């Protein structure tokens, strides 16, 4: 088992720096993403975790150019795909990037596929548009891709419409479409949330298998820490539009350095026979993103909040190599008696 920090300097496929995204709404300006920075390494999986509304989907959608502008607006930041910034242009050339160098799969496969087109044609369309395959060759390749995603009788299935597929099979078809052009990066937005656990296990196994095969990077968006534990190499924890902690998957689970990460972990069902452990909810709800609080966004719900946290946004502390936490508790003078929280070793 290679520890992530040793390889954390691997070349990044995608490098996002200080990304800010806003939306104009009738209620005012929603600051959906406030300063997200992360990178995704070739052949590795980066998980972005957080509750609904924390900005995890908006982050990747803005990278993909899927945000309607207006009302959306990328006010600041860069996203370098192999060194080329893909967010600063007015219109993203979808043909070049989306579906070609970055593939994407969504939570709800039923509403993401075209109900009036045969499955095989939908996959073939990608190859026809991006790779110039002839219609016949593209369809043949679509059948191979369906077989690759473990759909039985692929030839027959390719000629069927989405309504005759189950939820798990639709997700496989979406994956087949997303990997058709062998992208460097696959973005999976809650790919297994709508599925039963046995089907979820199949889909997650399939994603890993395809990742090894194509040395593909994956960004996995999820609210489920158990899925993160199964899939991720690196993890970014988001709260109210900001990244509050990031590090390797072991950093996040065994050396949690932000109270919010601890809170998320405590809310999970535990494997212990003691029913008292686990399932400790985080009381309250996230702040509204119209008026983000002036200090730490987690202040109102944080059991370890100090007076300083209310007014002053916490800086980023590197608590161990490549493991960062935005929390004032890591300031040298702050109290270090927080149960379960990891602190940098004192020199």
């Amino acid at each position: 088992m290679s520890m992530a920090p040793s390889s954390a300097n691997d070349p990044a496929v995608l490098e996002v720096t200080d990304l800010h995204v806003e939306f104009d709404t009738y209620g005012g300006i929603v600051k959906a993403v406030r300063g997200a920075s992360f990178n995704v390494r070739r052949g590795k999986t980066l998980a972005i975790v957080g509750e609904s509304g924390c900005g995890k989907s908006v982050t990747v959608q803005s990278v993909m150019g899927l945000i309607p502008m207006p009302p959306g607006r990328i006010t600041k930041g860069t996203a370098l795909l192999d060194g080329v910034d893909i967010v600063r242009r007015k219109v993203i050339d979808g043909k070049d990037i989306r579906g070609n160098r970055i593939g994407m799969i969504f939570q709800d496969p039923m509403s993401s596929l075209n109900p009036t087109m045969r499955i095989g044609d939908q996959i073939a369309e990608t190859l026809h548009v991006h790779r110039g395959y002839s219609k016949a060759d593209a369809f043949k390749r679509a059948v191979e891709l369906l077989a690759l995603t473990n759909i039985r009788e692929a030839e027959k299935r390719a000629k069927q419409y989405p309504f005759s597929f189950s939820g798990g099979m639709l997700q496989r078809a979406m994956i087949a479409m997303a990997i058709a052009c062998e992208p460097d990066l696959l973005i999976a937005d809650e790919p297994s949330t709508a599925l039963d656990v046995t089907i979820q296990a199949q889909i997650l196994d399939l994603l890993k298998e395809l990742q090894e095969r194509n040395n593909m990077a994956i960004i996995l968006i999820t609210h489920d820490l158990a899925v993160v534990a199964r899939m991720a190499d690196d993890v970014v924890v988001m709260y109210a539009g900001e990244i509050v902690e990031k590090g390797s998957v072991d950093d996040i689970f065994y050396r949690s350095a932000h109270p919010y990460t601890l809170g998320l972990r405590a809310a999970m069902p535990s494997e212990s026979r003691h029913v008292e452990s686990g399932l400790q909810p985080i009381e309250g709800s996230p702040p509204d993103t119209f008026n983000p609080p002036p200090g730490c966004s987690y202040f109102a719900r944080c059991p370890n909040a100090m007076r300083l946290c209310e007014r002053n946004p916490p800086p980023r502390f590197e608590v161990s190599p490549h493991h960062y936490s935005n929390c004032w508790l890591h300031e040298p003078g702050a109290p270090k008696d927080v149960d379960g929280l990891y602190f940098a070793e004192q020199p």
Partner: protein
Amino acid sequence: MSALIESKALTKHFKIGRNQIVHAVDDVSLAIEDKEIVGLVGESGSGKSTFGKTLLGLHRKTAGEVYFEGEQLPDIYKPADFQRYAQRIQMIFQDPYSSLNPRMTVGEIIGEGLRLRGDSEGAAIREAVAVWLERVGLERGHMSRYPHEFSGGQRQRVGVARALIMQPKFVVCDEPISALDVSVQAQIVRLLGELKDSLGLTMLFIAHDLSMVRYVSDRIAVMYMGAVVELGPADDVYFEPKHPYTQILIASNPRPDPRSERNRKSVAITGEISSPLNIGSGCRFANRCPHVMEVCRADTPGLILRDCGGSPREVACHLYEPIAGPN
């Protein structure tokens, strides 16, 4: 034995087209004791929601009987029957978006049951609604708001208040947490646990996630293609599953622990749950089962107490010998 509600050979078939019958619920007998919580787990299409709804008369049953407090519930519900039983039996629905009327205020939604019962004044109803809003962790002032002004977790709290304001004895919770974030799921599970203790509720808790269900349930029943395949104390079923299907279900569930996940061998089961159309004889799990034997395809195993090594368990599987005796 003092079962509060008991189904005897409850069956619900749906006819679709000519000679096509969906065996959504087949011959399910389940007794829920007073103040007990039974978790009913299964994948989509296993018939768990249909069982819950048929139990309460929201679907007309095909065969079987349901007894509540010793009294047989009607085969066909008339509107007056629903009004009568609604005071003792309630349901919390899965989708907090579609189960609340968007044109009613939250106060009207929660107070509707009391209003229809007709024995309370408007002011008393408003007070009761306010008390329940606070009890489920919302605020009095939320009464005049509409459902769209609330988040998913808050709406689910409204659904809980609407069901429990009637002070029912028995509540069917149909996947009350599936649509919610993990941290909010914990809030709702906690809330239900507290209310169960303070109100002495009996519940059927339907879910597809075993790890969460374990926290609320006294016993867990696992359903597959319309039949219960395993039934036992919650921790026993979770930590020592006996039926091959339950074993796969639990092993498929990811754990929030990267080290154990890295050392996990893949247990992904091949295939998907098949449609319960025109079921023949034999075990319904036979075509996906890793331990399938000759007998499984011919003979349907019954859900009876069997010798599983350790304490006996009610499990519908030929791998285990039946224990003779009264059952």
